[in-house]
């Protein structure tokens, strides 16, 4: 790994000279109860090596048997991505030496994927990009290695590694796009939108927890540049394990700028794997792709072929959720959002969150307001995904219910969100603990109103003369005195009563 900083070309200069081609590989960990080829539990977070058996440990003589539910999920994902479903396909062994798989191979699919030739329409700022899907195939996840000694957690400098095989064998679906060309300056956003909208689809299908922070959904980003106007694809790099939507966008942008700087300097791109660094927002060189990368794939002799009948495929087609384009159109009509409001909601990755908030009782505009103004800003400021702030749709609806009941105003509601993000409990607990309820008790308010009138005799005189609009200044003074916790409507009434 080189410590020298990469030279980057400014983004606009990249676009002036080059056309980017993107390719995305997304691994989806299915939410089946058991592993792909054995009955071990897939529950996340178990003690190390407590969810392993002879099959997933690759012990001699152990025989794999395919999880039917995982095949069903694979077909449903394929159908939702408008793929063709193979009438007959096999598993294959991908042979390699790395201790994250104790078998010395990963059971995957090679030239016979279960799903192929599909597409997904991705919306970016109201514009639709059709992303062609090359294939979606079944495989198994690997174990988790911890590198001990040297630099913590990193491969280089490690003295030895410790492996937990609980994750080894959990069903994965790998979804691979065809090269996405023609996105130009939108390439980073298209990459992000694709992963974001693919996740929404996976959630709607109910086949995965699809949490990027827990690694249920992992993206590899392939990128190459071609000289503007050329239709020959350039040499690509593959950036592995980009684990948030925001990082997908950043990684594409970074690689575009890095490639362009090398190409304009007369150099050539090395076909290699790159590592993404979330903290610094850069990629560094991983392993070079070479002849040594030869996995000697061959058909898995311990498993019989999978041959979904047309009847089964059609039955599964009947279980598909509404397609994303129809869903967006339906929700926009139901909620009465303008095109711009809808676009912002989709762009923020908040469509599902807003939908759940409305289902929990909030009005569409209130749900949109909280997620897009307040919570999206917090997510952006802290660099986390909006769905992972620690604030649930039900909590947003509960806060709005308090606003509707007159117990909170918007300013106080924001303080409740502060508390939710900080993990201080439920909205009701936070209101109580922080003393956030609105004061509408006339005794307390009247004292503050009288003080404000006494302190601002000029304003009071204007109001007495009938200039009711001047009351705003006094309301402001009272609100300040009451630290924002006064019922503004009642304050106004009291001021006008006293100065009538």
């Amino acid at each position, binding site marked *: 790994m080189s410590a020298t900083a990469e030279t980057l070309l400014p983004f606009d200069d990249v676009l002036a000279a080059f056309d980017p081609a993107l390719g995305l590989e997304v691994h989806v960990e299915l939410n*089946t*109860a*058991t592993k792909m080829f*054995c*009955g*071990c*539990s897939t529950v996340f977070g178990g003690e*190390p*090596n*407590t969810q*392993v*058996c*002879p099959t997933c*440990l690759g*012990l001699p003589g152990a025989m794999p*048997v*395919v*999880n*039917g*539910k*995982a*095949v069903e999920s694979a077909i449903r994902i394929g159908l939702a991505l408008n793929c063709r479903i193979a009438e*007959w396909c*096999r598993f294959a062994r991908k*042979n*390699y*030496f*790395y*201790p*994250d798989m*104790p078998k010395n191979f*990963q059971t995957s699919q090679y030239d016979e994927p279960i799903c192929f030739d599909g597409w997904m329409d991705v919306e970016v700022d109201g514009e639709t990009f059709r992303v062609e899907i090359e294939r979606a195939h079944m495989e198994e996840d*690997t174990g988790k*290695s*911890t*590198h*001990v000694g040297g630099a913590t957690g990193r*491969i280089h400098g*490690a003295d*030895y*590694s*410790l*492996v*937990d*095989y609980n994750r080894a064998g959990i069903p994965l679906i790998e979804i691979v796009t065809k090269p996405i060309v023609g996105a130009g300056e939108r390439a980073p956003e298209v990459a992000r939108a694709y992963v974001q909208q693919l996740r929404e689809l996976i959630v709607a299908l109910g086949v995965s927890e699809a949490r990027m922070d827990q690694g249920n959904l992992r993206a590899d980003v392939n990128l190459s540049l071609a000289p503007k106007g050329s239709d020959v694809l350039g040499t690509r790099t593959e950036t592995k394990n980009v684990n948030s939507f925001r990082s997908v966008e950043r990684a594409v942008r970074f690689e575009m700028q890095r490639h362009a700087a090398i190409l304009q300097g007369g150099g050539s791109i090395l076909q290699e*794997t790159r590592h993404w660094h979330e903290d610094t927002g850069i990629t560094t060189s991983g*392993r070079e792709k070479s*002849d*040594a990368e*030869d996995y*000697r794939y*061959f*058909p*898995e*002799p311990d498993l*019989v*072929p*999978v*041959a*979904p009948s047309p009847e089964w495929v059609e039955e599964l087609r009947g279980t598909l959720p509404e397609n994303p384009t129809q869903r967006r159109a339906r929700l926009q009509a139901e909620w009465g959002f303008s095109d711009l409001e809808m676009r912002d909601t989709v762009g923020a990755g908040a469509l599902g969150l807003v939908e759940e908030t409305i289902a929990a009782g909030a009005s569409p505009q209130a749900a949109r307001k909280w997620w897009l103004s307040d919570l999206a800003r917090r997510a952006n400021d802290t660099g986390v995904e909006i769905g992972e702030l620690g604030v649930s749709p039900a909590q947003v609806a509960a806060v709005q219910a308090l606003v509707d009941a007159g117990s909170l105003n918007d300013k106080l509601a924001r303080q409740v969100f502060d508390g939710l993000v900080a993990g201080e409990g439920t909205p009701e607990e936070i209101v109580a603990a922080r003393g956030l309820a609105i004061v509408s008790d006339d005794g307390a308010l009247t004292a503050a109103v009288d003080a404000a009138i006494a302190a601002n005799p000029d304003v009071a005189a204007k109001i007495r003369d009938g200039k009711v609009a001047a009351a705003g200044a006094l309301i402001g003074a009272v609100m300040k005195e009451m630290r924002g916790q006064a019922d503004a409507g009642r304050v106004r009434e009291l001021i006008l009563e006293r100065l009538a």
Partner: protein
Amino acid sequence: MPEITRAEVAHLATLARIDLSDAELDHLAPQLSVILESVASISGVAGDDVAPTSHPLPLVNVFRDDVVRPSLTPEQALSGAPASEEQRFMVPRILGDEQ
């Protein structure tokens, strides 16, 4: 069936992490060729009506219900490991990349 070359055997040895000397390569390459030729003679028997297969049984769709079955205890799982630490398999320092 084309003959397997010395270079191919060397490549396979590298993939299999087997360190072969020049003398061993000279010795093994012709032997592997003979084995491949013998196996290839099977394709002479199969007529056009026999499709290539990777499995001897005419079975498809052998599936298991998605029902959890007991796993090994960690002690059992680790009992064959040359070394372990913190209930994990201990392996030599890894030089390559994760897949």
